[in-house]
C-alpha cells in the first residue's frame, strides 16, 4: 500500500476531519499521521485554528451581555459604545423590526412598514 507523503497528507486534512475519506484513504492518512510528527502537528494546529475561530463567536456573544443591553447605546448613540464592527443592529433598527413583527400580528396581510 502506497504511503501518503506529507504534502499529500496535509491536503487531505479537511476531508479527513469531514469524514469524507473512503476507508482506505482514511486508514492511510491515519497511519501516516501516527508516524509523522510534522503532519500530526499540522493536524493539531488546524484543529486549534478551528477552535480559535469558534471562540470568536463565544467571545463576541459574551460581550453582548444582557446586563449591557440597557446601557449599550447611551449618549454616544448606536455605534458609540462599540467599535464599528460590533455585532449588533443599531437600537432603532432593532426596535423597528420588533414593531414590524408586532404589526404583522395585527394586520390581516403581512406588510413591510419600513
Amino acid at each position: 500500500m502506497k504511503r501518503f507523503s506529507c504534502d499529500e497528507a496535509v491536503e487531505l486534512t479537511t476531508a479527513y476531519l469531514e469524514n469524507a475519506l473512503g476507508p482506505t484513504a482514511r486508514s492511510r492518512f491515519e497511519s501516516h499521521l501516527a508516524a509523522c510528527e510534522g503532519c500530526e502537528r499540522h493536524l493539531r494546529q488546524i484543529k486549534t485554528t478551528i477552535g480559535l475561530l469558534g471562540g470568536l463567536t463565544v467571545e463576541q456573544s459574551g460581550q453582548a451581555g444582557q446586563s449591557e443591553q440597557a446601557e449599550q447605546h447611551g449618549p454616544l448613540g448606536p455605534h458609540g459604545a462599540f467599535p464599528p464592527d460590533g455585532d449588533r443592529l443599531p437600537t432603532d433598527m432593532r426596535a423597528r423590526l420588533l414593531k414590524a413583527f408586532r404589526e404583522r400580528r395585527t394586520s390581516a396581510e403581512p406588510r413591510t412598514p419600513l
Partner: protein
Amino acid sequence: MGTYLGEPPPDDVVVEALRAGDETVFAQLLDLWTPGMLRLARSYLSTRDSAEEVVQDTWLAVIGNIDGFQRRSSVKTWVYRILINTAKKRQARESRTIPWSSAFNGDQPEGAATDPSRFRRGTDLRSGGWKELPALWPTPEGEALAAEARDRLATALAGLPPRQRTVITLRDVEGHTSEEVCEILEISAANQRVLLHRARASVRGVMEDYFEAASRSI
C-alpha cells in the same frame, strides 16, 4: 455557539410561535442570529451600513413570509438563505464590490492550499516530506495574548477571498454543519470542502506566522 442568550426552542415551536406572533421568541432569534448574519453579510458588502440593511431586510422578509415557510429546511438555514439572496442582490447594486460569480474563479486557484515550498522536492523517498516541521504553538496564556491572537484571526478572515471567507465563517465561526452550508450557499459538498480547506490552510498559515513572531519576541 451563541449559548449566552440561550439556544432557541426546537424549530416546530419556533415556527408556531412566530406565526402566533410571540414577540419573545422573535426577539430571541433576532438577538441570537443577528451577530452571525451581520458577519456573513459583511463578507458580501463593503460597508457596515449595507450589511445592517441587508440583515434588516432579511428579518422583514422572515416576518412577511413565515406563514409560507415550508419546513423543507431548518428555520436557521431558511433565514440564512434569505440573507444570502438579499446580500447578493444588494451586492449586485453596489459597484465597489466584486460580484459573487466573478469572485468565484479567483477564489479557487489550482494547486495546494499549503505552501509547496514547505516540502522537499526530489525523487528520493523523502520527497514530499516537511523540510522543517511546523513549529509547536504555545498554549495561549493570559488575556493579552488571547486578545491579540483574536485580532490576528479576525484579520486573517477578512483577508480571505469572499467565498472562502463565507464558508469558513459559516462553518468554523458560526458552527453550521457542512450540509447546512451546502444548502445555504447552494454548492456541492466537494466544493464546500475545497473552499473550507483553503480557508483553514490560509488562516492556519497566518496564525503560524503570528505564533512564530510572538515566540521570537519573548
